[in-house]
């Protein structure tokens, strides 16, 4: 069947894109630590801070900037205030006092007592007029520092509700909605912009991912899982072009697709023995897919997402190695088996269309290619990769100059020796010399929730975003951070009252504060998702 016809005939999924929450959002870190509160003379407050800070160094990894340093008696949390007043009743005027927080790492208690003694409310030198009141105190008249134990939250509050709760029970806490919280969740403006750019065509790309999945399954070479890599920069150009021409925004959606890959876990012969696919020629789906038997599962490098990222790398090796003698294949390296790996018809169509010299590519298409580096924009770099475009970098500013159009074959023939086409300006995929690096700034659409291995591979490939249909969730998946919840529940913490849901780990790997790389994660919720709850049970496997 004609591939272009197949693509044109694809019906998009109907539904909406919704951000995947992060594990920091679904399980806000509520780590608490011991701290001390003590009452000091308000006039000595700045001296107290100076003395504390110089005597006891802070832990730079715990800024604790969400905690107030001081609190007046009136704003102390009632339980703490009660505990304090039981031990040291408030002094009568005119001594004005304030409470200071001594936060972890906690110093030695005796040292702390000694350090703070001069600032105690009843320390004589600072307040000469207090002697009569002092005398009425039942306890020792010597300056006394009471250290009252309390608990403090180690991490900033996630919302004002949490801040209020802590302020009322532990210690006054400041909620700063503008504070950079990229370790908790993607900054909202970046998330929203990406969602807006993804929304119009996501249904098409996921439909294509399912088509690729079907191809993989029907070939008997793999399970029914597909992945589609899209360049959002090209999407932006498509949107701009559609506004100019008045055509629908989703027209030519497939122009932004860089590569597709299907699952191929049954295609690898091991130890020279026939592969699962070769054992069952012409049988589709492969009988091994009806169950999960580890030996028949190939390996995660044969999963759709990993193969797709591998195709981008493969294309770059093929296109950057021209004229580069050092990049020639080392036959002893098994990695090079990848370069000879066979591609399905959809896979090779998307990876190699518009390639210079490709037989089905016309010059007109070459010149029209929407991804010409000249027009490419990078306004939305990976939120975690920092500034990716440096105008002073000559290699990158090369992107701004118009590329040389590939000369038509007839002219190369008459204009002297053939010029090797080293920079395929007509390709969608950026070569290394054009600044292309791994899958930076690209989006990947997958028919199913990728497994933990592929989810981390996605991060290591530096994708901008990953999108999968909610219906493709798998208990072996690495991205979801919580069970499917009703869309109305937002601030409410999902309690463990979710009935009948699969037992699985929710890793939310796309955005974990511990990991160096992060990507935006989205789920596609189809309109009829509600109705098909009773889907036939499929075997659990790693997608």
């Amino acid at each position, binding site marked *: 069947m004609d591939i272009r016809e197949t693509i044109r005939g694809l019906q998009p999924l109907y539904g909406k894109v919704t951000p995947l929450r992060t594990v920091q959002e679904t399980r806000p870190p509520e780590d608490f630590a011991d701290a001390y509160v003590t009452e000091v003379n308000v006039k000595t407050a700045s001296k107290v801070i100076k003395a504390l800070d110089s005597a006891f160094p802070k832990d730079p990894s715990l800024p604790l900037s969400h905690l107030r340093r001081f609190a007046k008696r009136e704003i102390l949390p009632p339980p703490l205030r009660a505990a304090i007043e039981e031990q040291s009743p408030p002094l009568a005027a005119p001594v004005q006092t304030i409470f200071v927080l001594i936060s972890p790492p906690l110093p030695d208690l005796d040292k702390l007592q000694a350090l703070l003694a001069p600032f105690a409310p009843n320390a004589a030198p600072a307040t000469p007029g207090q002697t009569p009141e002092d005398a009425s105190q039942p306890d020792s008249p010597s300056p006394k520092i009471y250290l009252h134990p309390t608990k403090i939250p180690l991490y900033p509050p996630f919302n004002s509700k949490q801040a209020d709760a802590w302020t009322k029970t532990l210690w006054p806490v400041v909620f700063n909605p503008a504070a950079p919280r990229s370790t908790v969740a993607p900054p909202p403006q970046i998330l929203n912009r990406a969602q807006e750019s993804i929304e119009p065509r996501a249904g098409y790309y996921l439909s294509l991912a399912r088509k690729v999945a079907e191809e993989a399954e029907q070939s008997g070479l793999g399970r029914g899982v597909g992945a589609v890599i899209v360049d959002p920069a090209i999407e932006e150009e498509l949107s701009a072009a559609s506004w100019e021409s008045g055509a629908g925004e989703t027209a030519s959606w497939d122009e932004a697709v860089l590569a597709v890959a299907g699952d191929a876990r049954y295609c690898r012969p091991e130890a*020279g023995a026939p592969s699962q696919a070769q054992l069952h020629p012409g049988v589709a789906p492969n009988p091994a897919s009806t169950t999960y038997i580890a030996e028949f*599962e*190939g390996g995660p*490098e044969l999963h759709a997402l990993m193969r797709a990222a591998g195709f981008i790398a493969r294309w770059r090796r093929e296109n*950057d190695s021209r004229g580069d003698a050092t*990049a020639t294949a080392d036959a002893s390296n098994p990695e090079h088996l990848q370069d000879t790996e066979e591609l399905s018809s959809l896979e090779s169509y998307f990876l190699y269309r518009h390639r210079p010299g490709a037989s089905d590519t016309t010059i007109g298409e070459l010149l029209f290619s929407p991804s010409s580096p000249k027009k490419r924009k990078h306004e939305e770099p990976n939120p975690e990769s920092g500034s990716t475009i440096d105008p002073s970098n000559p290699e990158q500013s090369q992107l701004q100059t118009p590329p040389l159009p590939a000369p038509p074959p007839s002219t190369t023939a008459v204009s002297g020796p053939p010029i090797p086409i080293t920079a395929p300006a007509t390709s969608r995929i950026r070569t290394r010399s054009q600044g292309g690096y*791994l899958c930076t700034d690209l989006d990947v659409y997958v028919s199913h929730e990728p497994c*933990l291995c592929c989810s*981390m*591979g996605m991060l290591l490939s530096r994708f901008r975003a990953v999108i999968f249909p909610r219906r493709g969730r798998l208990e072996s998946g690495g991205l979801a951070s919580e069970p499917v919840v009703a869309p109305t529940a937002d601030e409410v913490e999902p309690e463990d009252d979710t009935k009948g849901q699969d037992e699985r780990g929710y890793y939310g790997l796309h955005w974990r504060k511990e990991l160096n790389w992060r990507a935006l994660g989205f789920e596609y919720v189809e309109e009829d998702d509600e109705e098909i709850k009773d889907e036939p049970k499929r075997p659990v496997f790693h997608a």
Partner: protein
Amino acid sequence: MQTPETSQMPAVEFTGNPAVAEDSRHGYFMRQALLMGEKALQSGETPVGCVLVHNDQIVGYGMNDTNRSMNGTRHAEFIAIAEMLQSYPRSALQHTDLYVTVEPCVMCASALKQYRIRCVYFGCANDRFGGTGGVLSLHSDSSIDPPFPVYGGLFEKEAIMLLRRFYIQENEKAPNPRPKKNRELNTKFEDGSEEASTPL
């Protein structure tokens, strides 16, 4: 159910464990992994090396290959497995141990679990990406594949020195290389010891 965080089973330390001492056969295999890491360093790759050991024989060698392949997922473990599978069926991995200079990352830890590796020995921990105790503990988390044991700390200093020697270099392949002209190789460790100049 247990969340990934609550089910952590820290990797067992080698220190004081004579069964896996550095002068044992484990030490021999880890030295081979370190040699692969050295090879990676010479090739301009992040110096992580590994070997797969089946019936006391090395059946797969791997070193990080992300720069050459332009593929960020080509870690040493995958290269070694690919080599092994040319001569052994996948099921042989259930009777195979991995010796790797750096704790497997989350991706590799999941892959090793899917491949049902028998046991993993690593050199230094990986607190940025580690999947067997460093960040996550996939080796012990419950999943559709059985857990596997992990031992860390074998030739830890040698593994760290390989990484340090790599990271004082400038990364010419990065979009914005950071100048590192004035950096000096740190040869000290937290316990106060110093690295000998010829670790192997």
